């Protein structure tokens, strides 16, 4: 019987070789995937993505949950940056957070919705006036991600990490100024505290300062280093060890000298995405390492 089979195969030798080769390649790929699954990073990694004049931060929590906060303007940079951070076969992001509906924060998310599978989309519920906001809603709908409205006091917990929503609260949500509706996040993980402030102005910062947040390790400097944000009161209250300014070519004079001097006044190390490109901070619980691209 085997002889007959063998004869049959040798008749179609060429086809058999091709089939066998194809199977081998596929096997190798699948095994590579399985091995990659076993390797989960236990450090906290925060990336301040170089997306030009706009905001986008990508956080990988210890244990591997991926959170993207904002996507920068529509220039495809957020996608390229994500592609260089994530393994090529990873097409999933657990949580997408939109700080507030301004084009330099959400437009890049349209592409992210179009290209990644997303677990949940967290936002304040405030809709934007920009014409491209309809594109965002459309892309979100097609993506099939879950929508979660968040506000002050909400908390995301994963293993030892927790993300607390500090703002906005009801009164801010009614503000005409979109920047006031920014979702402000406090990330506690690996003995470190990081503040993501979106585009909030001094008015909100000063209220946060009154809450005695304590010293902050890493601050995502508000509003690309605008002089109307990063008030002296706020900066003195939180004394960030590391300040990262997400900024690109712009006509507003961001980041302003006032902001830079307030930050350096408390001894903070300042990094900016226009000079340092994407800034990556790795925290293992005992130390904090900063990498520039």
């Amino acid at each position, binding site marked *: 019987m085997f002889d007959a089979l063998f004869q049959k195969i040798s008749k179609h030798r*060429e*086809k058999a070789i*091709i089939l066998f080769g194809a199977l081998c*390649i*596929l096997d190798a*790929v*699948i095994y590579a*995937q399985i091995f990659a699954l076993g390797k989960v990073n236990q450090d906290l990694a925060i990336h301040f993505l170089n997306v030009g004049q706009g905001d986008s931060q990508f956080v990988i929590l210890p244990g591997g949950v991926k959170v993207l906060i904002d996507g920068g303007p*529509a*220039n*495809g*940079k957020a*996608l*390229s940056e*994500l*592609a260089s951070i*994530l393994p*090529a*076969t990873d*097409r999933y992001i657990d949580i997408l957070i939109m700080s507030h509906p301004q*084009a330099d924060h959400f*437009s890049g998310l*349209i592409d992210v919705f*179009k*290209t*990644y*599978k997303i677990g949940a989309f967290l936002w304040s519920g405030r809709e934007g006036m920009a*014409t*491209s906001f*309809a*594109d965002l809603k459309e892309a979100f709908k097609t993506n099939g991600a879950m929508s979660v409205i968040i506000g002050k006091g909400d908390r995301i917990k994963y293993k030892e990490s927790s993300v607390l929503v500090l703002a906005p609260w009801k009164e801010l949500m009614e503000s005409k100024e979109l920047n006031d509706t920014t979702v402000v996040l406090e990330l506690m993980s690996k003995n470190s505290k990081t503040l993501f402030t979106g585009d909030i102005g001094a008015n909100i910062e000063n209220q946060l300062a009154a809450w005695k947040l304590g010293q902050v390790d890493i601050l995502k400097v508000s509003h690309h280093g605008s002089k109307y944000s990063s008030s002296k009161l706020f900066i003195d209250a939180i004394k960030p060890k590391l300040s990262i300014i997400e900024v690109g070519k712009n006509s507003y004079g961001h980041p302003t000298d006032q902001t830079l001097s307030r930050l350096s006044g408390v001894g903070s190390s300042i990094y900016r995405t226009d000079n340092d490109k994407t800034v990556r901070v790795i925290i293992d619980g005992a130390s904090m390492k900063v990498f520039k691209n």
Partner: protein
Amino acid sequence: MRSYDIFFFSSLFFLVGIVFGSLGAGLLLSFWIALFMSASFFILYGVSKNKRQLWIACLVALVFVGVFYYRWDDARFKSARIPFEKQMYFIGKIMADPNAKDEKQEIVVKAHKLDDANILLKVNPYPRFSYGDILAISGKIREPFPEGYAEYLAKERVRGVMNSPEVEFISKQEEFSLKGFLIGIKRSVADSFYKLLPKKEAAFLTGITLGGTSGFSPEFKEAMKKSGTTHIVALSGYNIMIVGWAVFGIFSYFLSRRISFALTVLSIITFVGIAGAEASVVRAAIMGILVLIAREAGRTYSFRNAVVFTILMMAIVNPKVIVFDVGFQLSFLALLGILYLRPAIMKLFHILEESAGFLSWKDNLLTTVSAQLAVVPILISSFGAISLSSIVSNTIILPLVPVAMGVGFITAVVYHMSYYGALVISWIALILLKFKIFVIEFFAEHSIFLHLGISFFFVIAYYGALIFFILAMYKKNKREVY
């Protein structure tokens, strides 16, 4: 002269007229020259009664007809009255699938108010517009600049350019259109690539399968230029030929040649549909199919008229194609390469048609090499500087192009049935793409530039040498036979 010769030579002289017209030959001057030459040959005929001279007299007149046709078409194109550099407000309809790039989208609209001229708009990437949308546009229309760009746009029948005009969406196209439907398929194919692959690889795969460089980083575009591989993302008959012939190879592995051939042509037509059925793609497909037929038929003389007829039709539809469309030139030269150079090379190495080898690699290699040799000067002059390494990079990458396309299309089809199924298949694509990107970037970095410059003289000398080689082999063959 026999009737098929009459057809061949009349078409040829007409096309020569179109080439002269494209190169700027004046109407009046060419009229007088043609008249003078025609008359001279006619007088010669009167004296010698040699019929050949009568024919030449008529054919030379056809050159003028060609120049006239080109001029007439150009004048018609430029007849639209457009108030350049003035603040304008008009309604336009999107006529082709918008080209979405990272930082902008390029849209071609037809404006009724501007004598139905086509205007190119460069606007923000979002909100994203679609084929058939009606838009209200306000801003200043500029004349395209510099000249090369203007010629390129004229070939696409685009008359003016607007940078960041104010655009307001009015309505979507209500009625069903086949083109809109096909563009929908094209978009869904591209979307599935972006869902499954990282951005760079997804953009590259989209470029290979559907053409275009949207989503390419400037660095990668530069790398493709340096390695001389940009042409693989420009859909041309040359590309379609490579693919069609790979498809044919697969089919003929299982089926008879005739059925495989029919299936291949069918796949090409389907592909044209998916790629958006733009004029340039249709041209490419026709040329691609011609090349396939050429290779199948293998008889150059019976084929001559088919080629010239196709080109004639294309020139009548859009006379600017002949001189200003690189894709067309690539296809045409590849076709000539396979028709004439391939048999010559076979004779040189004493290769017989029957000895195909594993997966008929000899056959494939032979066709690639002959097509490649025929197009090299165009590839080099149109897609970047002359780099010696481009020959190596192309030899490595070209055979993988149809493989990547095949895997790409399978992925796109499976994607609509099962996301995870497609994800697994996309890993194969990923390996292929990563390898190709590696090759492109490697040869971009290690490109050895030849500073000959691609002069007109070089091109002439190159093709002169090729023709000499073909003729020499042809003669040698004759001697052997008789």
